[in-house]
């Protein structure tokens, strides 16, 4: 296996480009998980719905992109908060498995609903020439988007860290995440905090969907399944509940996928398995993830 420097650099650029998208979506997972201790199986499908909203906003209703994007984020936040209210809030005191089943149910429902409403045929996401333009740097082709996505991800990371660490809402979120019942006793309105968290998570899914749509300009009902699972895995690798960890996990997963393809080109068919293998390894070696804290299990 020979790999010249230029090809290697190209692979590296590809890996960063995919990884930064994973990272962006993984943050949403980690936020919700950190507070609710729940894998939001529907996150990938909220992401899919956001992509459809963006498609309709731009390609069907011909809104200017900045209006469309703000609308998409707004509608997706409403969707996320609505799902929380309808499907998760009634189960707050139910066993964890019920909530998990509910999450799977929501995901199933959104996929079927999208198939019913928008048909199974994929739609073309509008093209953004400014973002998809290719830059040639020393023989390496890079889309403008590849440079923009990590910037957006890092920017969002700082905004979120600020919210979580330096605002009242963030303090309440941390309190709920540390101990749900005590937080309630301390007068924190749990339902509202959780709804806000879902809203933030969904807005991240919406931003992720818009950028994802620019890079992979195709919208279909099942588009959220694999990104959803992989980004959850990225969040676990980084240490679920840890925002910085999610970003790190996203980049690690993206690079691992692309570099494995680069090193063993005969194994390309196994690419989707890499995420799951990584997940199982990480869970065995370091279940709390790379940046996760050791938490004592409550008896």
């Amino acid at each position, binding site marked *: 296996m020979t790999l010249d420097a230029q090809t290697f650099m190209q692979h590296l650029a590809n890996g960063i480009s995919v990884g930064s998208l994973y990272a962006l979506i993984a943050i949403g997972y980690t936020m919700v998980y950190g507070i609710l201790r729940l894998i939001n199986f529907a996150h990938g499908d909220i992401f899919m719905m956001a992509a459809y909203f963006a498609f309709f906003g731009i390609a069907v209703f011909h809104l200017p992109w900045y209006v469309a994007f703000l609308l998409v984020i707004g509608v997706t936040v409403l969707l996320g908060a609505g799902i929380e209210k309808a499907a998760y809030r009634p189960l707050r005191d139910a066993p964890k498995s019920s909530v998990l089943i509910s999450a799977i149910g929501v995901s199933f429902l959104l996929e079927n609903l999208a198939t019913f409403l928008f048909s*199974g045929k*994929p739609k*073309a996401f509008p093209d953004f020439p400014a973002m998809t333009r290719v830059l040639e740097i020393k023989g390496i082709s890079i889309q403008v988007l590849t440079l923009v996505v990590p910037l957006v991800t890092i920017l969002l990371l700082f905004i979120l860290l600020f919210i979580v660490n330096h605002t009242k809402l963030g303090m309440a979120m941390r309190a709920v995440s540390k101990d749900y019942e005590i937080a309630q006793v301390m007068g924190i309105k749990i339902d509202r905090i959780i709804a806000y968290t879902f809203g933030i998570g969904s807005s991240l899914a919406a931003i992720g969907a818009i950028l994802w749509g620019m890079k992979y300009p*195709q919208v279909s009902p099942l588009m959220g399944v694999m990104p959803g699972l992989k980004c959850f895995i990225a969040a676990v690798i980084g240490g679920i509940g840890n925002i910085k960890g999610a970003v790190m996990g996203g980049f690690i997963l993206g690079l691992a996928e692309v570099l494995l393809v680069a090193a063993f*080109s005969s194994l390309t068919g196994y*690419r*989707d398995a890499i995420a799951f293998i990584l997940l199982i390894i990480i869970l065995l070696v370091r279940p709390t993830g790379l940046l996760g804290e050791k938490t004592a299990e409550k008896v």
Partner: protein
Amino acid sequence: MKKCLVSILCLSLSVVMLAGCGGTKEDANVIKIGVFEPLTGANAAGGELEVEGIKLANKLYPEVLGKKVELVIADNKSDKAEATTAAARLIEKDKVSAIIGSWGSSLSMAAGDLVKNNKVPAVGASCTNPMVTQDNDYYFRVCFLDPFQGTVMANYAYQQGYRKIAIVQEVSNDYAVGLANFFTAAFKKLTGDENCIVEVGNYNTNDQDFSGILTNIKSKNPDAIFAPGNFTESALVIKQAKSLGLNVPFLGGDTWETEEFLNVGGQDVEGAVITTFFDDTAPVTDEAKKFVEEYKKEYADKESIAAVSALGYDAYLLILKAIEKAGSTDSTAIRDAIATTKDFEGVTGSITINEQGDADKNSAVIKTVKDGQFVYLDTVVIE
């Protein structure tokens, strides 16, 4: 206690439902033809197109032997378990005389045993996997097979002077794997070079990122890339290749010929070359002229006609002609009539059913994308 009540209610309900599943009224003046297609799930797009053609054919030819032909459409949900129940339902409950379908060879194979055991003839419109009609006297098809299509494309590539080809295949798709394989075999034979396939990249259905395999391919400098697979992923493959600066021609199969492929691919799929069954701009038979005219009337909002729609139309007509020839709706008689079809003038050319149950076709159409449209390039005849 409420639970107990509900459970008993549910149980009795299910018994009633089960009873409801069986038994239908027989109507002597109606001939039923089952349409067995994926209308939901992963293959929905292809299934819908095929049904369009079948419905159009039914509209134009609504009668045979003085009886009305009724289409019974069963969605097989792109899922094998559903496919067998859907087929069983068509055969047992709806008592259809013949079945058309299905898009997706694996779904057709799932219905294969049922069709064979119940002696109801089935005509596949676009299932190209050789296994569909193997060991099955009751399965036929009007399309050509993967080996033929692969060979046609290999010939075209060779004529264009390509000597080094890279393959990107959808490894979880039987159609793509089959096509890639026959292409490879034919191309090796043509070039006499064992190393003419410089790289093979695999991806899975629903994948969205192909940058890794494409970067590998770029480092091998192929003359062209053969990328059989679903149009959904293929359009993205081509787009990503272009953004990686991989500016070589892309070759594919008939599945690409959809509006979605053009919409998603946009500028980047310009120049992509495919083999297909049918060309709406140059109809080869009278039937084809009629089909193109009527299709444009019926589905005015469509810009082009997919080959699978034409094949669905042909499958319907083939069955209708067979019923006419058999002079009865007895399914064994229909089967025999289908099996002996000779020089049937369909939309996609002249069809003769061979011993295998496949349509003997020796010509394929080659098309390319130009200005956002599939345009006719060449007709290839292989002896």
